Protein backbone atom coordinates (compact mmCIF):
# COMPACT_ATOMS: atom_id res chain seq x y z
CA UNK A 1 0.00 0.00 0.00
CA UNK A 2 2.67 2.41 1.06
CA UNK A 3 4.79 1.31 -1.85
CA UNK A 4 2.02 1.99 -4.31
CA UNK A 5 1.64 5.41 -2.74
CA UNK A 6 5.30 6.20 -3.24
CA UNK A 7 5.08 5.02 -6.81
CA UNK A 8 2.16 7.28 -7.56
CA UNK A 9 4.01 10.14 -5.93
CA UNK A 10 7.08 9.45 -8.05
CA UNK A 11 4.94 9.35 -11.11
CA UNK A 12 2.86 12.45 -10.56
CA UNK A 13 4.63 14.89 -8.28
CA UNK A 14 6.93 16.54 -10.78
CA UNK A 15 4.40 16.62 -13.62
CA UNK A 16 1.87 18.19 -11.24
CA UNK A 17 4.37 20.84 -10.21
CA UNK A 18 5.27 21.58 -13.80
CA UNK A 19 1.66 21.81 -14.87
CA UNK A 20 1.03 24.16 -11.96
CA UNK A 21 3.96 26.29 -12.99
CA UNK A 22 2.78 26.36 -16.57
CA UNK A 23 -0.77 27.20 -15.50
CA UNK A 24 0.53 30.08 -13.45
CA UNK A 25 2.72 31.52 -16.17
CA UNK A 26 0.21 31.04 -18.95
CA UNK A 27 -2.50 32.70 -16.90
CA UNK A 28 -0.19 35.65 -16.42
CA UNK A 29 0.86 35.88 -20.00
CA UNK A 30 -1.29 36.93 -22.89
CA UNK A 31 0.89 34.99 -25.27
CA UNK A 32 -1.22 33.47 -27.90
CA UNK A 33 1.09 30.49 -28.08
CA UNK A 34 0.65 29.63 -24.42
CA UNK A 35 -2.98 28.77 -23.85
CA UNK A 36 -4.03 27.89 -20.32
CA UNK A 37 -4.05 24.21 -19.36
CA UNK A 38 -7.83 24.03 -19.27
CA UNK A 39 -8.00 25.09 -22.91
CA UNK A 40 -5.46 22.46 -23.80
CA UNK A 41 -7.31 19.86 -21.78
CA UNK A 42 -10.57 20.74 -23.47
CA UNK A 43 -8.95 20.50 -26.88
CA UNK A 44 -7.37 17.21 -25.86
CA UNK A 45 -10.68 15.68 -24.90
CA UNK A 46 -12.44 16.96 -27.94
CA UNK A 47 -9.75 15.83 -30.33
CA UNK A 48 -8.67 12.48 -29.11
CA UNK A 49 -11.80 11.15 -27.50
CA UNK A 50 -13.29 10.99 -30.95
CA UNK A 51 -12.94 8.93 -34.07
CA UNK A 52 -9.86 11.01 -34.87
CA UNK A 53 -8.09 8.67 -32.54
CA UNK A 54 -8.69 5.84 -34.95
CA UNK A 55 -8.14 7.86 -38.09
CA UNK A 56 -5.03 9.76 -37.06
CA UNK A 57 -3.46 8.08 -34.09
CA UNK A 58 -3.71 4.36 -34.74
CA UNK A 59 -2.18 4.37 -38.24
CA UNK A 60 0.63 6.55 -36.92
CA UNK A 61 1.25 4.12 -34.11
CA UNK A 62 1.31 1.26 -36.56
CA UNK A 63 3.95 2.98 -38.68
CA UNK A 64 5.84 3.81 -35.53
CA UNK A 65 5.82 0.17 -34.48
CA UNK A 66 6.97 -1.03 -37.87
CA UNK A 67 9.65 1.63 -38.10
CA UNK A 68 10.98 0.96 -34.65
CA UNK A 69 11.03 -2.78 -35.15
CA UNK A 70 12.83 -2.47 -38.46
CA UNK A 71 15.33 -0.08 -36.92
CA UNK A 72 15.98 -2.49 -34.10
CA UNK A 73 16.55 -5.42 -36.43
CA UNK A 74 18.68 -3.39 -38.80
CA UNK A 75 20.60 -1.58 -36.08
CA UNK A 76 21.41 -4.66 -34.09
CA UNK A 77 22.14 -6.77 -37.16
CA UNK A 78 24.42 -4.26 -38.79
CA UNK A 79 25.88 -3.27 -35.45
CA UNK A 80 26.96 -6.84 -34.73
CA UNK A 81 28.61 -7.18 -38.12
CA UNK A 82 30.42 -3.88 -37.76
CA UNK A 83 31.29 -4.48 -34.13
CA UNK A 84 32.83 -7.86 -34.77
CA UNK A 85 35.15 -6.87 -37.56
CA UNK A 86 37.53 -3.96 -37.46
CA UNK A 87 37.92 -4.11 -41.16
CA UNK A 88 34.26 -4.10 -42.09
CA UNK A 89 33.84 -1.21 -39.73
CA UNK A 90 36.71 0.70 -41.30
CA UNK A 91 35.14 0.13 -44.69
CA UNK A 92 31.64 1.28 -43.83
CA UNK A 93 32.07 3.82 -41.09
CA UNK A 94 32.71 6.92 -43.22
CA UNK A 95 29.75 6.19 -45.48
CA UNK A 96 27.49 5.57 -42.52
CA UNK A 97 28.69 8.71 -40.81
CA UNK A 98 28.01 10.58 -44.00
CA UNK A 99 24.44 9.32 -44.14
CA UNK A 100 23.92 9.82 -40.44
CA UNK A 101 24.68 13.52 -40.62
CA UNK A 102 22.06 14.26 -43.24
CA UNK A 103 18.80 15.61 -41.87
CA UNK A 104 15.92 13.24 -42.63
CA UNK A 105 13.79 16.09 -44.07
CA UNK A 106 16.26 16.74 -46.87
CA UNK A 107 16.46 13.06 -47.66
CA UNK A 108 12.74 12.77 -48.15
CA UNK A 109 12.78 13.75 -51.82
CA UNK A 110 15.23 10.97 -52.50
CA UNK A 111 13.16 8.53 -50.52
CA UNK A 112 10.09 9.52 -52.48
CA UNK A 113 12.02 8.75 -55.62
CA UNK A 114 13.13 5.40 -54.31
CA UNK A 115 10.10 4.05 -52.47
CA UNK A 116 7.21 6.30 -53.33
CA UNK A 117 4.97 8.34 -51.10
CA UNK A 118 2.99 5.74 -49.26
CA UNK A 119 3.50 4.28 -45.80
CA UNK A 120 6.77 2.66 -46.75
CA UNK A 121 8.31 6.10 -47.24
CA UNK A 122 7.21 7.14 -43.77
CA UNK A 123 8.56 3.98 -42.26
CA UNK A 124 11.80 4.61 -44.10
CA UNK A 125 12.02 8.11 -42.65
CA UNK A 126 11.56 6.66 -39.18
CA UNK A 127 14.21 4.02 -39.79
CA UNK A 128 16.62 6.48 -41.34
CA UNK A 129 16.68 8.43 -38.12
CA UNK A 130 16.26 5.96 -35.35
CA UNK A 131 18.55 3.21 -36.54
CA UNK A 132 21.61 5.20 -35.48
CA UNK A 133 21.48 5.05 -31.70
CA UNK A 134 20.84 1.33 -31.94
CA UNK A 135 23.59 0.81 -34.46
CA UNK A 136 26.21 2.82 -32.61
CA UNK A 137 25.43 1.35 -29.24
CA UNK A 138 25.44 -2.16 -30.65
CA UNK A 139 28.81 -1.62 -32.31
CA UNK A 140 30.30 -0.29 -29.10
CA UNK A 141 28.71 -3.00 -26.98
CA UNK A 142 30.00 -5.71 -29.26
CA UNK A 143 33.46 -4.22 -29.32
CA UNK A 144 33.52 -4.31 -25.54
CA UNK A 145 32.72 -8.00 -25.09
CA UNK A 146 34.89 -9.32 -22.27
CA UNK A 147 37.92 -10.96 -23.89
CA UNK A 148 38.06 -13.73 -21.29
CA UNK A 149 34.48 -14.63 -22.04
CA UNK A 150 35.10 -14.49 -25.76
CA UNK A 151 38.07 -16.81 -25.33
CA UNK A 152 35.96 -19.17 -23.28
CA UNK A 153 33.36 -19.34 -25.99
CA UNK A 154 35.96 -20.00 -28.66
CA UNK A 155 37.54 -22.80 -26.70
CA UNK A 156 34.30 -24.59 -26.22
CA UNK A 157 33.54 -24.37 -29.89
CA UNK A 158 30.74 -21.90 -29.44
CA UNK A 159 30.53 -20.39 -32.88
CA UNK A 160 28.17 -18.90 -35.38
CA UNK A 161 24.71 -18.07 -34.27
CA UNK A 162 25.07 -19.59 -30.82
CA UNK A 163 28.01 -17.35 -30.18
CA UNK A 164 25.94 -14.41 -31.32
CA UNK A 165 23.03 -15.38 -29.18
CA UNK A 166 24.71 -16.40 -25.96
CA UNK A 167 27.81 -14.25 -26.00
CA UNK A 168 27.79 -11.24 -28.24
CA UNK A 169 24.22 -10.06 -27.97
CA UNK A 170 23.89 -10.84 -24.31
CA UNK A 171 26.99 -9.10 -23.20
CA UNK A 172 26.26 -6.12 -25.41
CA UNK A 173 22.67 -6.01 -24.24
CA UNK A 174 23.03 -3.25 -21.64
CA UNK A 175 24.36 -0.97 -24.30
CA UNK A 176 21.91 -2.17 -26.92
CA UNK A 177 19.09 -1.42 -24.54
CA UNK A 178 20.43 2.09 -24.08
CA UNK A 179 20.31 2.48 -27.85
CA UNK A 180 16.80 1.08 -28.11
CA UNK A 181 15.58 3.39 -25.40
CA UNK A 182 16.92 6.41 -27.25
CA UNK A 183 15.53 5.14 -30.50
CA UNK A 184 12.08 4.75 -29.04
CA UNK A 185 11.70 8.45 -28.37
CA UNK A 186 13.36 9.29 -31.68
CA UNK A 187 10.90 7.05 -33.47
CA UNK A 188 8.04 9.17 -32.20
CA UNK A 189 9.79 12.34 -33.26
CA UNK A 190 10.48 10.89 -36.68
CA UNK A 191 6.92 9.71 -37.00
CA UNK A 192 5.93 13.36 -36.77
CA UNK A 193 8.59 14.41 -39.25
CA UNK A 194 7.65 11.68 -41.69
CA UNK A 195 4.07 12.84 -41.70
CA UNK A 196 5.15 16.29 -42.73
CA UNK A 197 5.59 14.85 -46.21
CA UNK A 198 3.12 13.27 -48.57
CA UNK A 199 0.51 12.89 -45.90
CA UNK A 200 -3.11 13.57 -45.43
CA UNK A 201 -3.64 12.05 -42.02
CA UNK A 202 -1.79 10.90 -38.96
CA UNK A 203 -0.90 12.25 -35.57
CA UNK A 204 2.20 14.04 -36.80
CA UNK A 205 0.29 15.45 -39.71
CA UNK A 206 -2.40 16.67 -37.35
CA UNK A 207 0.07 18.40 -35.06
CA UNK A 208 1.76 20.15 -37.97
CA UNK A 209 -1.60 21.02 -39.45
CA UNK A 210 -2.75 22.57 -36.16
CA UNK A 211 0.44 24.49 -35.98
CA UNK A 212 0.01 25.84 -39.48
CA UNK A 213 -3.60 26.76 -38.97
CA UNK A 214 -2.76 28.45 -35.70
CA UNK A 215 -4.96 26.15 -33.69
CA UNK A 216 -2.62 26.42 -30.77
CA UNK A 217 -4.53 24.60 -28.00
CA UNK A 218 -5.05 21.75 -30.43
CA UNK A 219 -1.38 21.76 -31.30
CA UNK A 220 -0.47 21.49 -27.64
CA UNK A 221 -3.05 18.77 -27.19
CA UNK A 222 -1.28 16.88 -29.95
CA UNK A 223 2.06 17.34 -28.25
CA UNK A 224 0.60 16.16 -24.97
CA UNK A 225 -0.62 13.04 -26.69
CA UNK A 226 2.85 12.53 -28.17
CA UNK A 227 4.29 12.82 -24.70
CA UNK A 228 1.78 10.37 -23.33
CA UNK A 229 2.55 7.90 -26.06
CA UNK A 230 6.20 8.32 -25.26
CA UNK A 231 5.56 7.70 -21.62
CA UNK A 232 3.40 4.64 -22.27
CA UNK A 233 5.97 3.15 -24.63
CA UNK A 234 8.70 3.76 -22.15
CA UNK A 235 6.77 1.94 -19.45
CA UNK A 236 6.44 -1.00 -21.82
CA UNK A 237 10.09 -0.72 -22.62
CA UNK A 238 11.03 -0.66 -18.98
CA UNK A 239 9.14 -3.90 -18.53
CA UNK A 240 10.87 -5.54 -21.48
CA UNK A 241 14.22 -4.29 -20.30
CA UNK A 242 13.59 -5.72 -16.87
CA UNK A 243 13.26 -9.13 -18.44
CA UNK A 244 16.18 -8.84 -20.83
CA UNK A 245 18.55 -7.29 -18.32
CA UNK A 246 17.35 -9.12 -15.25
CA UNK A 247 20.71 -10.82 -14.83
CA UNK A 248 22.51 -7.55 -15.24
CA UNK A 249 20.54 -5.70 -12.63
CA UNK A 250 20.89 -8.64 -10.28
CA UNK A 251 24.60 -8.70 -10.89
CA UNK A 252 24.94 -5.00 -10.19
CA UNK A 253 22.78 -5.24 -7.09
CA UNK A 254 24.37 -8.47 -5.85
CA UNK A 255 27.58 -7.05 -4.61
CA UNK A 256 25.78 -4.30 -2.82
CA UNK A 257 24.36 -7.01 -0.62
CA UNK A 258 20.75 -6.66 -1.62
Amino acid at each position, binding site marked *: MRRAGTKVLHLLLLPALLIGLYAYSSANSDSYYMPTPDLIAAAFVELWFSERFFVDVLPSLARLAVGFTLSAVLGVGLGVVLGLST*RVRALFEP*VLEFLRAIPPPVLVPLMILLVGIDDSMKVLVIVSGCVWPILLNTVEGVRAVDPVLADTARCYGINGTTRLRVLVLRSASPQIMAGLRLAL*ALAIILMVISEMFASSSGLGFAVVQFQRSFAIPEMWAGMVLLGMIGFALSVLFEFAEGRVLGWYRGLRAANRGE
Partner: protein
Amino acid sequence: MTETTTQGTARERPEAPAGAGGRPRGAARTGPNKPLLGAVGIVAFLGMWEAVPHLGLVSERFLPPASTVLAALAQRATTPGLWIAVGDTLIGWGLGLAIAFVAAVLLGFAMGALPRVRAFTNSTVDFLRPIPSVALIPLAILLYGTDLRSTLLLVVYACFWLIYIQVLYGVADVDPVAEQTARSYGLGRLARIRYVVWPTTLPYLMTGVRLAAAVALILAITAQLIIGSPGIGQEIAVAQSSGAVSSVYALIVATGALGVLINIGVRVLERRVLRWHTSVRGEATA
Protein backbone atom coordinates in the same frame (compact mmCIF):
# COMPACT_ATOMS: atom_id res chain seq x y z
CA MET B 1 29.38 -13.97 -40.40
CA THR B 2 31.07 -17.27 -39.87
CA GLU B 3 34.33 -15.75 -40.96
CA THR B 4 34.19 -13.05 -38.35
CA THR B 5 32.93 -15.27 -35.59
CA THR B 6 35.73 -17.74 -35.85
CA GLN B 7 38.41 -15.14 -35.61
CA GLY B 8 36.89 -12.16 -34.00
CA THR B 9 37.61 -11.68 -30.35
CA ALA B 10 38.60 -8.32 -29.10
CA ARG B 11 41.79 -9.58 -27.58
CA GLU B 12 42.86 -11.65 -30.48
CA ARG B 13 42.46 -9.11 -33.20
CA PRO B 14 45.55 -7.03 -32.62
CA GLU B 15 47.86 -9.95 -32.54
CA ALA B 16 49.59 -10.87 -35.68
CA PRO B 17 49.45 -14.36 -37.09
CA ALA B 18 52.87 -15.88 -37.03
CA GLY B 19 54.76 -15.06 -40.13
CA ALA B 20 57.33 -17.49 -41.41
CA GLY B 21 60.04 -15.17 -40.23
CA GLY B 22 58.29 -14.56 -36.96
CA ARG B 23 57.80 -10.90 -37.65
CA PRO B 24 54.49 -9.48 -36.59
CA ARG B 25 52.52 -8.69 -39.67
CA GLY B 26 49.30 -7.54 -38.09
CA ALA B 27 50.22 -3.97 -37.42
CA ALA B 28 51.39 -3.50 -40.93
CA ARG B 29 48.26 -5.07 -42.30
CA THR B 30 45.47 -3.47 -40.35
CA GLY B 31 47.11 -0.23 -39.25
CA PRO B 32 47.55 2.12 -42.17
CA ASN B 33 44.80 0.43 -44.13
CA LYS B 34 42.03 1.72 -41.94
CA PRO B 35 41.63 5.16 -43.51
CA LEU B 36 42.26 3.51 -46.84
CA LEU B 37 39.39 1.10 -46.28
CA GLY B 38 37.19 4.03 -45.33
CA ALA B 39 38.17 5.77 -48.54
CA VAL B 40 37.36 2.61 -50.48
CA GLY B 41 33.94 2.62 -48.86
CA ILE B 42 33.34 6.23 -49.82
CA VAL B 43 34.52 5.69 -53.38
CA ALA B 44 32.28 2.63 -53.74
CA PHE B 45 29.38 4.66 -52.43
CA LEU B 46 30.05 7.46 -54.89
CA GLY B 47 30.40 4.90 -57.65
CA MET B 48 26.99 3.48 -56.89
CA TRP B 49 25.53 6.93 -56.76
CA GLU B 50 27.13 7.75 -60.10
CA ALA B 51 25.72 4.61 -61.63
CA VAL B 52 22.13 4.91 -60.45
CA PRO B 53 21.16 7.89 -62.64
CA HIS B 54 23.32 6.73 -65.51
CA LEU B 55 21.58 3.39 -65.56
CA GLY B 56 18.29 5.22 -65.63
CA LEU B 57 17.09 3.75 -62.35
CA VAL B 58 16.26 7.26 -61.29
CA SER B 59 16.00 10.24 -63.54
CA GLU B 60 19.05 12.44 -63.64
CA ARG B 61 16.82 15.44 -63.16
CA PHE B 62 15.93 14.33 -59.65
CA LEU B 63 19.12 12.59 -58.63
CA PRO B 64 22.05 14.04 -60.52
CA PRO B 65 25.07 11.74 -60.70
CA ALA B 66 27.75 12.13 -58.06
CA SER B 67 30.15 13.74 -60.52
CA THR B 68 27.69 16.53 -61.30
CA VAL B 69 26.98 17.12 -57.64
CA LEU B 70 30.64 17.11 -56.67
CA ALA B 71 31.37 19.54 -59.47
CA ALA B 72 28.60 21.81 -58.20
CA LEU B 73 30.03 21.52 -54.71
CA ALA B 74 33.55 22.27 -55.90
CA GLN B 75 32.24 25.30 -57.73
CA ARG B 76 30.40 26.48 -54.61
CA ALA B 77 33.46 25.90 -52.51
CA THR B 78 35.26 28.61 -54.43
CA THR B 79 32.73 31.19 -53.23
CA PRO B 80 32.87 32.54 -49.70
CA GLY B 81 29.11 31.97 -49.31
CA LEU B 82 29.48 28.27 -48.68
CA TRP B 83 32.18 28.76 -46.10
CA ILE B 84 30.24 31.44 -44.30
CA ALA B 85 27.25 29.11 -44.21
CA VAL B 86 29.43 26.28 -42.94
CA GLY B 87 30.80 28.59 -40.30
CA ASP B 88 27.32 29.67 -39.19
CA THR B 89 26.18 26.10 -39.04
CA LEU B 90 29.20 25.01 -37.06
CA ILE B 91 28.68 27.77 -34.53
CA GLY B 92 25.11 26.66 -33.88
CA TRP B 93 26.27 23.06 -33.83
CA GLY B 94 29.18 23.54 -31.50
CA LEU B 95 27.47 25.82 -29.02
CA GLY B 96 24.34 23.71 -28.90
CA LEU B 97 26.27 20.51 -28.49
CA ALA B 98 28.45 22.00 -25.78
CA ILE B 99 25.48 23.27 -23.79
CA ALA B 100 23.62 19.97 -24.15
CA PHE B 101 26.74 18.07 -23.17
CA VAL B 102 27.43 20.01 -20.03
CA ALA B 103 23.81 20.01 -18.92
CA ALA B 104 23.29 16.32 -19.65
CA VAL B 105 26.49 15.22 -17.99
CA LEU B 106 25.89 17.27 -14.86
CA LEU B 107 22.30 16.18 -14.56
CA GLY B 108 23.03 12.61 -15.57
CA PHE B 109 25.68 12.20 -12.90
CA ALA B 110 23.57 13.96 -10.32
CA MET B 111 20.62 11.68 -11.06
CA GLY B 112 22.88 8.65 -11.16
CA ALA B 113 24.13 9.55 -7.71
CA LEU B 114 20.68 10.38 -6.36
CA PRO B 115 18.39 7.53 -7.39
CA ARG B 116 15.66 8.78 -5.08
CA VAL B 117 15.47 12.12 -6.81
CA ARG B 118 15.68 10.41 -10.12
CA ALA B 119 12.58 8.37 -9.36
CA PHE B 120 10.61 11.59 -9.35
CA THR B 121 11.88 12.71 -12.72
CA ASN B 122 11.42 9.55 -14.78
CA SER B 123 7.84 10.15 -15.82
CA THR B 124 8.53 13.73 -16.84
CA VAL B 125 11.62 12.76 -18.80
CA ASP B 126 9.77 10.03 -20.65
CA PHE B 127 7.00 12.48 -21.38
CA LEU B 128 9.20 15.27 -22.67
CA ARG B 129 11.63 13.21 -24.71
CA PRO B 130 9.34 12.28 -27.58
CA ILE B 131 8.24 15.84 -28.19
CA PRO B 132 9.83 16.66 -31.50
CA SER B 133 12.19 19.57 -31.68
CA VAL B 134 10.65 20.55 -34.97
CA ALA B 135 7.30 21.02 -33.26
CA LEU B 136 8.98 23.50 -30.94
CA ILE B 137 9.96 25.80 -33.77
CA PRO B 138 7.10 28.27 -33.35
CA LEU B 139 7.81 28.40 -29.65
CA ALA B 140 11.49 28.99 -30.33
CA ILE B 141 10.71 31.83 -32.71
CA LEU B 142 8.31 33.33 -30.27
CA LEU B 143 10.89 33.23 -27.52
CA TYR B 144 14.04 34.06 -29.41
CA GLY B 145 13.09 35.16 -32.87
CA THR B 146 15.15 33.93 -35.77
CA ASP B 147 18.55 34.44 -34.24
CA LEU B 148 21.03 31.88 -33.02
CA ARG B 149 19.22 31.25 -29.78
CA SER B 150 16.29 29.65 -31.58
CA THR B 151 18.61 27.24 -33.30
CA LEU B 152 20.32 26.59 -30.00
CA LEU B 153 17.06 25.84 -28.25
CA LEU B 154 16.23 23.17 -30.80
CA VAL B 155 19.72 21.69 -30.87
CA VAL B 156 20.01 21.59 -27.12
CA TYR B 157 16.57 20.13 -26.63
CA ALA B 158 17.22 17.26 -29.01
CA CYS B 159 20.80 16.52 -27.96
CA PHE B 160 20.27 16.79 -24.26
CA TRP B 161 18.13 13.66 -24.04
CA LEU B 162 20.53 11.60 -26.10
CA ILE B 163 23.48 12.30 -23.88
CA TYR B 164 21.44 12.22 -20.70
CA ILE B 165 20.06 8.74 -21.34
CA GLN B 166 23.47 7.44 -22.34
CA VAL B 167 24.94 8.83 -19.14
CA LEU B 168 22.25 7.21 -17.04
CA TYR B 169 22.97 3.82 -18.57
CA GLY B 170 26.68 4.38 -18.18
CA VAL B 171 26.39 5.35 -14.55
CA ALA B 172 24.41 2.19 -13.92
CA ASP B 173 27.21 0.12 -15.44
CA VAL B 174 29.75 0.73 -12.69
CA ASP B 175 31.34 -2.53 -11.58
CA PRO B 176 30.26 -3.09 -7.98
CA VAL B 177 33.68 -4.44 -7.03
CA ALA B 178 35.36 -1.30 -8.33
CA GLU B 179 32.77 0.82 -6.55
CA GLN B 180 33.31 -1.06 -3.30
CA THR B 181 37.04 -0.75 -3.62
CA ALA B 182 36.71 2.99 -3.94
CA ARG B 183 34.38 3.20 -0.99
CA SER B 184 36.53 1.07 1.24
CA TYR B 185 39.53 3.28 0.54
CA GLY B 186 37.57 6.24 1.73
CA LEU B 187 36.99 7.86 -1.63
CA GLY B 188 34.27 10.44 -1.15
CA ARG B 189 31.30 10.84 -3.43
CA LEU B 190 33.01 13.30 -5.73
CA ALA B 191 36.18 11.28 -5.88
CA ARG B 192 34.18 8.17 -6.74
CA ILE B 193 32.42 10.03 -9.51
CA ARG B 194 35.69 11.28 -10.87
CA TYR B 195 37.74 8.11 -10.59
CA VAL B 196 35.20 5.32 -10.92
CA VAL B 197 31.86 6.44 -12.30
CA TRP B 198 33.23 8.83 -14.88
CA PRO B 199 35.61 6.34 -16.54
CA THR B 200 32.92 3.67 -16.54
CA THR B 201 30.47 6.05 -18.14
CA LEU B 202 32.93 7.33 -20.71
CA PRO B 203 32.26 4.69 -23.36
CA TYR B 204 28.55 5.35 -23.09
CA LEU B 205 29.20 9.05 -23.10
CA MET B 206 31.37 8.83 -26.19
CA THR B 207 28.58 7.02 -27.99
CA GLY B 208 26.21 9.70 -26.75
CA VAL B 209 28.49 12.41 -28.06
CA ARG B 210 28.79 10.73 -31.43
CA LEU B 211 25.03 10.45 -31.63
CA ALA B 212 24.45 13.96 -30.43
CA ALA B 213 27.09 15.43 -32.72
CA ALA B 214 25.13 14.23 -35.72
CA VAL B 215 21.76 15.15 -34.27
CA ALA B 216 23.05 18.62 -33.43
CA LEU B 217 24.13 19.03 -37.02
CA ILE B 218 20.79 17.77 -38.24
CA LEU B 219 18.85 20.14 -36.06
CA ALA B 220 21.07 23.12 -36.70
CA ILE B 221 20.41 22.59 -40.38
CA THR B 222 16.72 21.80 -39.96
CA ALA B 223 16.26 24.93 -37.88
CA GLN B 224 17.97 27.01 -40.52
CA LEU B 225 15.90 25.29 -43.15
CA ILE B 226 12.62 26.10 -41.47
CA ILE B 227 13.31 29.25 -39.50
CA GLY B 228 15.60 30.72 -42.08
CA SER B 229 18.49 31.71 -39.90
CA PRO B 230 21.72 31.78 -41.88
CA GLY B 231 23.69 28.61 -42.50
CA ILE B 232 23.73 25.55 -44.73
CA GLY B 233 20.10 24.87 -43.94
CA GLN B 234 19.01 28.19 -45.31
CA GLU B 235 21.08 27.63 -48.42
CA ILE B 236 19.36 24.30 -48.85
CA ALA B 237 15.98 25.98 -48.42
CA VAL B 238 16.77 28.51 -51.12
CA ALA B 239 18.09 25.86 -53.46
CA GLN B 240 15.06 23.67 -52.82
CA SER B 241 12.53 26.36 -53.43
CA SER B 242 14.39 27.25 -56.60
CA GLY B 243 14.26 23.71 -57.89
CA ALA B 244 18.07 23.70 -58.06
CA VAL B 245 18.51 19.99 -57.58
CA SER B 246 22.29 19.78 -58.00
CA SER B 247 22.76 22.58 -55.53
CA VAL B 248 20.56 20.81 -53.01
CA TYR B 249 22.60 17.64 -53.33
CA ALA B 250 25.85 19.56 -53.23
CA LEU B 251 24.80 21.08 -49.93
CA ILE B 252 23.70 17.68 -48.65
CA VAL B 253 27.11 16.31 -49.52
CA ALA B 254 28.70 19.21 -47.67
CA THR B 255 26.56 18.33 -44.66
CA GLY B 256 27.51 14.67 -44.84
CA ALA B 257 31.16 15.57 -45.18
CA LEU B 258 30.88 17.67 -42.04
CA GLY B 259 29.41 14.64 -40.33
CA VAL B 260 32.31 12.47 -41.43
CA LEU B 261 34.86 15.02 -40.23
CA ILE B 262 33.13 15.39 -36.90
CA ASN B 263 33.11 11.63 -36.46
CA ILE B 264 36.81 11.42 -37.22
CA GLY B 265 37.38 13.99 -34.52
CA VAL B 266 35.32 12.08 -31.97
CA ARG B 267 37.07 8.82 -32.88
CA VAL B 268 40.47 10.40 -32.31
CA LEU B 269 39.28 11.68 -28.98
CA GLU B 270 37.91 8.27 -28.14
CA ARG B 271 41.19 6.55 -28.88
CA ARG B 272 42.84 8.90 -26.43
CA VAL B 273 40.39 8.81 -23.57
CA LEU B 274 39.37 5.17 -23.91
CA ARG B 275 42.70 3.57 -24.63
CA TRP B 276 42.25 1.43 -21.53
CA HIS B 277 38.84 0.18 -22.59
CA THR B 278 38.29 -3.25 -24.11
CA SER B 279 36.78 -1.75 -27.24
CA VAL B 280 39.86 0.34 -27.95
CA ARG B 281 42.71 -1.60 -26.43
CA GLY B 282 41.83 -4.63 -28.50
CA GLU B 283 42.60 -2.51 -31.51
CA ALA B 284 45.47 -0.59 -30.02
CA THR B 285 47.91 -1.77 -32.61
CA ALA B 286 45.54 -1.43 -35.47
